[in-house]
């Protein structure tokens, strides 16, 4: 088994990611990164991945808002240790919106209906800390994709405090999760997302590294075979994969922002 390197922490990349320090910490706007997790097929555990990514961001000192369109169980409520009556509510009533806070670091909400997120008014974010918005869903959506994706952008805008254009917050990065059986759909997903969000960094997590070869992902990471060992635990997974993924993602997003602001300054 190949040896994994220690994941980079927020401190290692914060000089790239955080901006506006010339104004002093009080005046600096909160840095926000918006990440979508699109899981292809029900055989991969969407909530497990989402909870792992959210917990990894929290370990890196970020405050996290996690939204999940949970069509199919388990959902993130299972991994954040909610009582069955709470986490199963959207399974019995599609319009039900359930929310909570995990460890004071991750505020989360989930519903089977993306439109329900309009009703979500989460806890206040701690001042100063960078903010990660994580939106998880299964792909393809059951109904009109364009409307569904617009709903996700609106949901992300609703939990963002940075001020968004037209109430829409597009993703900075998209994590596509696929398996060998769904390789074709995963490639279609990355290509479609590239067309829809050309400025977003696209990562592909696959149990077969060849699954994304013909796709349009910027980076491809292998899903460890032993990741599913923690599926049944009612806790967010703590696999090194998530630390490496979130650190790499922050670095890519920060470099793109720097390039973007550099072009703007030169132009």
């Amino acid at each position, binding site marked *: 088994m190949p040896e994994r390197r220690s994941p980079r922490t927020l401190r290692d990349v914060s000089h790239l990611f955080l901006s506006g320090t010339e104004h002093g910490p009080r005046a600096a706007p909160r840095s926000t990164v918006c990440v979508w997790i699109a899981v292809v097929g*029900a055989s991969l555990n969407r909530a497990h991945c989402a909870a792992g990514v959210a917990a990894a961001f929290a370990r890196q000192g970020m405050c996290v808002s996690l939204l999940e369109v949970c069509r199919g169980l388990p959902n993130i409520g299972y991994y954040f240790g909610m009582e069955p009556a709470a986490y199963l509510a959207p399974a019995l009533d599609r319009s039900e919106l359930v929310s909570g806070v995990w460890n004071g670091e991750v505020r989360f909400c989930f519903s089977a209906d993306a439109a329900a997120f309009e009703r979500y008014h989460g806890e206040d974010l701690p001042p100063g800390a960078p903010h990660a918005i994580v939106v998880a869903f299964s792909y393809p959506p059951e109904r009109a994709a364009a409307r569904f994706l617009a709903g996700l952008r609106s949901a992300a805008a609703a939990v963002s405090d940075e001020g968004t254009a037209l109430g829409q917050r597009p993703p900075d990065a998209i994590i596509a999760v696929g398996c060998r059986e769904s390789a074709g759909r995963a490639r279609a997903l990355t290509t479609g997302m590239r067309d829809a969000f050309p400025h977003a960094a696209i990562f592909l997590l696959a149990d077969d590294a060849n699954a994304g070869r013909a796709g349009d992902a910027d980076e491809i990471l292998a899903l460890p075979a032993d990741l599913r060992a923690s599926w049944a635990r009612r806790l967010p997974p703590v696999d090194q994969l998530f630390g490496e993924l979130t650190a790499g993602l922050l670095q890519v997003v920060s470099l793109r922002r720097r390039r973007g602001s550099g072009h703007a300054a030169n132009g």
Partner: protein
Amino acid sequence: MRRTDRGRPDAVAVLALARRLGPLALRRLFVRFCHEVSRFSDGFEIEIAPFDLVLRDSASGFSVTVSPLRELFLVSLGESRSFDIRVSSVEGCTSALDLALAAYLAVASKAAPAA
């Protein structure tokens, strides 16, 4: 026993079986329970028998048997059917779904991923 296509349950067959239940609310819970269990994974198949239905995941070997009676339905986890969960209310359905999900995840986490 009739086996339906892989993936989504045969909705018509499930609805037909649900009619054995008297209360309409319980019929809806029965259908919802079968629907949610069948979506645990892409590999679930549904087998319809005269008096019950079996939801089976071919990848992990996990199965759930659901038997509608008049005022309740029974949920049995695994092939041994060593115990039944009696469902006659939303609370009962919640317990059955929670136990079924936990049992499925425990089985699936031990099953080797397809090579």
